[in-house]
């Protein structure tokens, strides 16, 4: 067995507050991300594109696509979760039932 060797260390390492523990700093990262995204929209007119398919040459196509893809993914992911999620002993219960029958 080479698994599950949960090892505890000294308490001191846990008590230290890290930069990321402050939610204000997480906000800073988020706003920085918005800033970088804005820069990547602003540069749109300033480089030459080689669209293969036509529509991929539209203004900010990749940015909009990148933004919409996760929304689509999350929406349908949630639908699938609602329809298809079962308790995590779903198959074990079936197995147990079949063993009981024999």
């Amino acid at each position, binding site marked *: 067995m080479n698994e599950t060797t*949960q090892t505890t260390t000294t308490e001191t390492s846990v008590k230290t507050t890290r930069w990321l523990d402050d939610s204000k700093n997480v906000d800073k990262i988020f706003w920085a991300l918005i800033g970088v995204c804005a820069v990547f929209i602003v540069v749109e007119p300033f480089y030459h*594109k080689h669209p293969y398919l036509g529509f991929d040459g539209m203004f900010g196509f990749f*940015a909009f696509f990148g933004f919409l893809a*996760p929304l689509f*993914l999350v929406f349908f992911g949630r639908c699938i979760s609602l329809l298809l999620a079962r308790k995590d002993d779903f198959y074990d219960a079936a197995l147990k039932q079949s063993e009981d029958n024999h």
Partner: protein
Amino acid sequence: MLWGIPPGLLLIAGAFVVPLLPGAWRKTYMTLLPLAGLWALAGAQPGTFYSFNFFAYELSPVRIDGLSLIFGYIFHIAATLSVIFAWHNEDVVEQMAGLSYAGAGIGAVFAGDLITLFIYWEAMAITSVFMIWARRTDAAYNAGMRYLIVQVGSGVLLLSGAILIAHETGSVVFEKMTLGNLATWLILLAFGIKCAFPFLHNWLPDAYPAATATGTVFLSAFTTKCAVYALARGFPGTEILIYVGAAMAAFPLFYALIENDLRRVLSYSLNNQLGFMVVGVGIGTTLAINGAAAHAFAHILYKTLLFMAMGAVLYRAGTVKASELGGLYKSMPFTAFFCIIGAASISTPLFAGFVGKSLTISATAKGGYEIVWLILMFASAGVFLVSGIKIVHSAFFASDAGIQCREAPPNMLVGMGLTAILCVAVGVYSPWLYSILPYDVTYQPYTMDHVINQLQLLLFTALAFGLLTRFRLIPEAKNSVNLDFDITYRRWLPQLYRWLITLTRDGWNSFLQDLINGVHRVIAYMFKHHGPEGILARTWPTGSMALWVALLLGGFLLLYYS
């Protein structure tokens, strides 16, 4: 070839020496063996070797050309990295299985005929299952058994197809095939199972998360990429594969998004990446086949790195459930760093995935497959979200779950570090990877528009993730089984079987009961009439008989004289 030993067989034969060696010698030997194989391969000349006649058929166990070499190189590299990552592991069965599994994978990509391919194909199945069983839990045993049945089944289909082809053509050479008869469909199905085509894919997210922390690292590299190689060799330009690949690239992402077990998330995203390669094989142009091979090369590196990081988390924290993890960057900063490199390597410029994947996406665009291109773009954004951001965020940065553990052992860190270096090296210096592709290539991934567009795609995906997280719209990680196609053979078929058994048993019993009841009724009826009290058993008085005779006589006389 090293000492005249065919590639692959070196590792398989070498694995039998493993139990004879003590401690550190054994580990050193295991690390050097795939490196020796790689060194031998570097000097190998193209051609067919060791051909011999087997009954009426010519077998060619070793065929070296551009397509087999790139897979051969990366398989040796992956074997070396995986052995280093598993250096601390003392389980000799797993050590032997790991080496011989890698050897079988290498042997398969150099197989020049279908019979040799079949032998290595089955060897891969049989050796790899020990990585799952080495976990030594009931769940792993059952998952391993399901895995083995599917994998061996794939081999049986391959052999059936090979026999039919041998019967039809008189040759078992493994070369390009055209779909059209039963034999080729059987072989495509066999490859499709190992390549985790939609509806044939369930063995992958079922078995890989069940293996040991180190075993999954081995498993992630060989089986599926060997199938990609086999498709690229046997079915390049088969149009149906474009659409199969597009479906594969998209649908596993939804499962990856809602899955709690992070190694299962990676398994689903592995399935999604195979989709890109299958699209490349389906398009079949030299650019697209180069794309599939380059992507397979890069993919093995970054997926190995991500599975290593999750393996290290499993080893130290004891779980890879997203719902139980978070804030691990404090305890495991190096692992977190390497995991971020792995996540970035999926498709960020300057990392391996970008250099590998771009070829396939360009080939799709040049071929004019708009819808497929859009699906691949969605899949690129989606996989960055689930396999990159979700993995890194859930394990290392989400709200602190309070797990205090040590950093991964040094050998794991060295394994991850070397893999990370390769991910960056391949990404930064693209000519190196492009020089070992099957066909000559003049492709420049680092053009201004390509880099900016890719960064736009990824940054806005990250932005959408940030917003979704802020509004708590990302599906909450929770323990659940998300029903997939395996419900057919894990639930419905057994239920149908039990139902049929019950039906047959009850039906037979009730038939017998009806038969017995029927016989009883007949006997009772007979008894009623013929029994001691029955009407037919009564003694008849002589007077009544004389009366009846007189009546009959009277009737006769009347008829006679009328």
